[in-house]
């Protein structure tokens, strides 16, 4: 930690033009081309495009080196002062003693960090494939089915591939035992070893449709609900039908007597009275933990990836809103005057917008991506923190230590960032969890209404919509319900504990 801070301190002693050149390189050869703006002006290599690229790059680097970087440095200082002061550390220790909130914090943090490894655990792609002695790490690099001895140019179905390899290995072993081995078989035995597919623990992806692998029509129930699955087997025609309905059964169930034979078979199948056709293996009991959705995608995988997306989204939105809110609130509170009055009126107007509806309008028209949706929400969500920070600044500004800082000749920047901001960050910390709760809720609501993230993105809100449309398939509604409830509950436990630790109010009573 000290090394890092020492490194940071050293970096900050460097003159700003170094930052300018670094940013210029980054902007010229990566940021601006990636934005695709220059391409709109003219074809690549043309004079206009080059001019625009350079101009944008210089502008970005200039603003970055002389404005954003120093600002970020100052904010870092403010946070360092805030986090480093014993006041904060005492509060934090208090927080760690509040078990419910602290454990919730650890759980959420653990789950969130773990969710970034979700690709290794829950994925339709194999982690690695050994084919003819060569290892292919297929998790992040694309490989064609042909490359692994299957047919086709698309991504192989690695679960099938594994079965195939296992079958091939069995056949090879049989040939070797029988002495009819080919040259390739011998190379497998001596040189390559059997082909291997290392699958993730839960080898199904969030946007992979399993329609052609599973029997019946989606949504499929969780595979451990065996009685519910019989309907899927029935739809697929997997049951071995007797020639005539067994008479003893009909004697037991008088109600079945008037039914057509097919209806009787169906009723029997659903009660588990019929055997499956020979050679058919039903899915394993814990293959799809929460079933599939109406497009045959694994719900559990979607839930996990949805958790990562929801939380990331909420964190990003909260962060941007707070950055905006803190900046604007600090300026309003510190400078006051006409600037404050005008901007406050603006904030008033802005917050009089019907928030949800406006976001719905914009996102229904623009079909947002993750970034765009986050930006839209930020556009309407930054005002709350502004009020708090402005109030904090107004209060802190009137205190003597600020006057003392002025009296010793501090610049406005030093007063804002070194003196006031570290003392105004407590509400930022204590409201953040509740803002995260709100932002998760907003994303899920928008997804539910269909104005959220675009279609194949795994999202809880979309599952809610499916749950509402398929009330007889309770796993669709219950899964996101439990996930959302659990997450929000944990986060609000954290929020409550943070509030208790950072803004302790002992309510005392007289009698």
């Amino acid at each position, binding site marked *: 930690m000290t090394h890092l801070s020492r490194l940071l301190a050293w970096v900050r002693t460097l003159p700003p033009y170094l930052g300018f050149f670094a940013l210029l390189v980054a902007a010229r050869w990566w940021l601006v081309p990636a934005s695709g703006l220059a391409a709109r002006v003219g074809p690549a290599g043309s004079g206009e495009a080059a001019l625009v690229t350079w101009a944008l790059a210089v502008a970005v680097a200039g603003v970055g080196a002389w404005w954003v970087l120093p600002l970020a440095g100052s904010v870092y200082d403010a946070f360092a002062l805030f986090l480093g002061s014993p006041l904060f550390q005492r509060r934090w220790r*208090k927080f760690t003693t509040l078990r419910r909130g602290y454990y919730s914090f650890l759980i959420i943090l653990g789950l969130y960090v773990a969710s970034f490894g979700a690709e290794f655990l829950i994925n339709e792609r194999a982690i690695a494939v050994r084919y003819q002695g060569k290892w292919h790490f297929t998790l992040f690099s694309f490989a064609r089915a042909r490359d692994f001895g299957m047919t086709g140019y698309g991504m192989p179905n690695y679960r099938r591939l594994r079965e195939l390899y296992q079958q091939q290995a069995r056949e090879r072993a049989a040939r070797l035992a029988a002495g009819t081995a080919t040259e390739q078989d011998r190379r497998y035995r001596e040189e390559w070893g059997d082909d291997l597919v290392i699958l993730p623990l839960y080898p199904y992806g969030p946007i992979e449709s399993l329609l052609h692998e599973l029997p019946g029509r989606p949504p499929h129930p969780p595979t451990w609900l065996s009685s519910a699955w019989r309907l899927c087997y029935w739809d697929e025609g997997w049951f071995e039908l007797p020639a005539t309905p067994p008479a003893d059964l009909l004697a037991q169930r008088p109600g079945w007597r008037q039914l057509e034979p097919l209806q009787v078979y169906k009723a029997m199948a659903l009660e588990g009275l019929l055997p499956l056709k020979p050679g058919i293996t039903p899915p394993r009991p814990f293959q799809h933990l929460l079933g599939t959705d109406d497009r045959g995608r694994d719900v559990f995988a979607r839930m996990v990836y949805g958790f990562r997306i929801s939380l990331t989204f909420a964190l990003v939105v909260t962060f941007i809103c707070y950055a905006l809110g803190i900046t604007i609130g600090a300026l309003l509170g510190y400078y006051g005057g006409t600037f404050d009055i005008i901007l406050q009126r603006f904030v008033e107007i802005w917050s009089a917008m019907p928030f949800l509806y406006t976001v719905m309008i914009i996102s229904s028209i623009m079909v947002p991506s993750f970034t765009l949706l986050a930006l839209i929400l930020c556009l309407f969500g930054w005002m709350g923190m502004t009020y708090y920070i402005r109030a904090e600044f107004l209060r802190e500004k009137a205190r003597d230590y600020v006057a003392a800082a002025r009296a010793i000749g501090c610049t406005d920047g030093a007063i804002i960032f070194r003196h006031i901001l570290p003392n105004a960050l407590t509400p930022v910390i204590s409201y953040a969890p509740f803002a995260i709760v709100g932002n998760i809720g907003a994303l899920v609501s928008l997804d539910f209404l269909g104005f959220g993230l675009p279609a194949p993105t795994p999202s809880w809100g979309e599952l809610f919509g499916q749950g509402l449309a398929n009330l007889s398939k309770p796993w669709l509604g219950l899964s996101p319900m439990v996930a959302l409830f659990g997450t929000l509950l944990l986060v609000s436990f954290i929020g409550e504990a943070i509030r208790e630790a950072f803004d*302790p109010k*002992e309510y*005392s*009573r*007289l*009698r």
Partner: protein
Amino acid sequence: MPDDLLRVTDLKTWFRTEAGLARAVDGVDFTIREREVLGLVGESGSGKSVTALSILQLIPDPPGRIVDGQIFFGGEDLLEGYRRGSYERIRQIRGNQISMIFQEPMTSLNPVFPIGDQVAEAIMLHQRLSRPAALDRAAEMLDLVGIPAARQRLFDYPHQFSGGMRQRVMIAMALACQPALLIADEPTTALDVTIQAQILELMLAAKEKSGRAAILLITHDLAVVAETCQRVAVMYCGRIQEIGDTRTIFTAPGHPYTRGLLRSLPRRGQKVRRLPTIEGTVPSLFELPAGCSFSTRCPERLDQCSTLPPPLIETVPGHLVRCHLARPAASSTPDRASHRPPQPTQSATTPPCQGQL
């Protein structure tokens, strides 16, 4: 002892806080006699306000709790009900026989009720008057404390009054039921000097008019005490260090703390280059020294001071000092009542001590 209006013995009020146990009041004994003005002085955090609030059992709980002691008022231990968790008796006494004036006139009045109602409330409760009658009485009281056009202002809200006027309302409220004891907790600290003089004057005058009240005046300002009180109790770190009549305390203080305090006050007309000081700082309430709490700063410290808590010793009749150095008076008798300070004989408008001067 019939003349003791209020006798506090071994009062202990402790606060359980995040930082530990704060013994804000840790064994306080004193008496208030009828019709006298007793000053309770001490620095901030010495426990003087807590003592006052303990008398009326207005300690915020949690974190505070009166853990020990007796408060005898008219022969009855007020804390008896408190220990049982019953507040019935003290509620009959609060505002009726003992009433209180608080430091902050800005926040001590309910902002959403007209002042007339707030003054009349106690009258209606304790004297069982109807609302119109109680309002009449409230108007009289407001008139008495010098609020101009009192009857018209009955229905004004507290925010329509200035600080001094609000404190007058507080006094009217406190005196409404003609209490036997008026506790004034820093009544003038939040006010300007010239207003402070008005309010002190008014309090004493109103006390005289209403007849029987004794006043417990809590302040950190030794000068206020010197001008208004017959007797003074000096508190330090939750204990009373010295109690006696004003003149003795100011002319011949018995406790090193009182001596140091008086010496360190800049006095008018005495031009000295350097002020004598008490060295060191007030110990934290969480880690008080084992013996005498002043032993960390005392220039006359003995060996036993840091280990053995000194008892209250009667040096001159009626003058008690909590110090190992103090010597009991030769003629001291166990009956303290026989050495009462002179009874107040002042006229209604002048402060009591002026008559002696």
